[in-house]
C-alpha cells in the first residue's frame, strides 16, 4: 500500500513490475490489476505546452494520498495498491501519476483505481504551472472532471 511523491522521471511499467515482484503476498491471490497512468500532453486547452512545474505541499500531499487509499480499501476488497506522483519540472510525454490496484476480482480493481484517481485529482495538493510555447507561464486553474455526468 505504497504512496510516493517522486522528483525526476519514472517508468510506470517498470515501477509496477518491481512493486509486484517485491510483494510476497500477491502471487496466486490476484485476479485483477487495474492501472491508470496520467502523462503530460503537449497541448492543453488549445495551447502548445513546452513543459510544466508541479508544486506540492510536503507532508499534506502524502497524508491526503494515504487517506484516499484508506477510503478505497474500506469501500472495496483490495490486495495492494501503489500510488506514485511526480513533482518538480516535467516535460511532455513524461508520466505524472500512476495508480495501480491489485484485487481478487475485476469489479473491485476497476472501481477502486478510478475512485483513487478522481479523489487525487480533486483533493491531493498538487499544482501545475505550464510553460507555453509563447514563453508565458500560467497556473492551471482547475482540473477537468473525470465523469461525463459531473
Amino acid at each position, binding site marked *: 500500500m505504497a504512496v510516493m511523491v517522486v522528483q525526476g522521471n519514472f517508468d510506470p511499467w517498470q515501477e509496477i513490475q518491481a512493486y509486484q515482484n517485491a510483494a510476497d503476498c500477491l502471487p496466486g491471490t490476484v485476479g485483477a490489476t487495474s492501472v491508470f497512468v496520467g502523462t503530460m500532453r503537449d497541448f492543453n486547452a488549445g495551447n502548445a505546452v513546452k513543459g510544466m512545474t508541479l508544486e506540492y505541499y510536503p507532508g499534506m500531499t502524502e497524508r491526503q494520498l494515504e487517506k484516499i487509499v484508506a477510503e478505497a480499501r474500506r469501500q472495496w476488497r483490495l490486495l495492494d495498491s501503489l500510488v506514485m506522483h511526480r513533482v518538480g519540472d516535467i516535460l511532455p510525454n513524461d508520466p505524472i501519476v500512476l495508480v495501480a490496484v491489485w484485487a481478487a476480482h475485476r469489479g473491485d480493481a476497476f472501481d477502486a483505481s478510478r475512485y483513487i484517481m478522481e479523489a487525487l485529482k480533486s483533493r491531493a495538493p*498538487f*499544482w501545475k504551472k505550464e510553460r507555453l510555447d509563447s514563453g508565458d507561464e500560467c497556473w492551471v486553474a482547475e482540473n477537468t472532471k473525470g465523469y461525463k455526468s459531473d
Partner: protein
Amino acid sequence: MRHLSFNYPYFRNGVHVMSNKASIKVRYFASLKENLGRSEDHLVYTGLMTVREIWCSANPGQPLPCNILAAVNMDYVDLDSLIEAGDEVAFFPPVTGG
C-alpha cells in the same frame, strides 16, 4: 474577532512560555503564494480564531479569494473552523494534480 485572554499567554512552572505552540504558521501555495509574494507568515496566537480570521490577520484588507481551499495541520477544513495554538494553517488554490 474576540481575543480570549484565558487561552494566552500560558505559564509553565511560573515562567511565561512563548513556545512554538503559541504561534500560528500560515502557509501559501502555488498561484496564491506568487500573488502574495511570500510563502508563509508567522502569527502570534491570541486566542480562539477561525481560519477566515487567520487570513484577515495575515492579509489585512485583502479579501479571501473565493475559490480558496484551506487546511489545518494538513487536513482540509472549513473556513469557519477554529484553530488552536501551534496549528499550521494553509491556503491554496484548487488542486490540479494527476
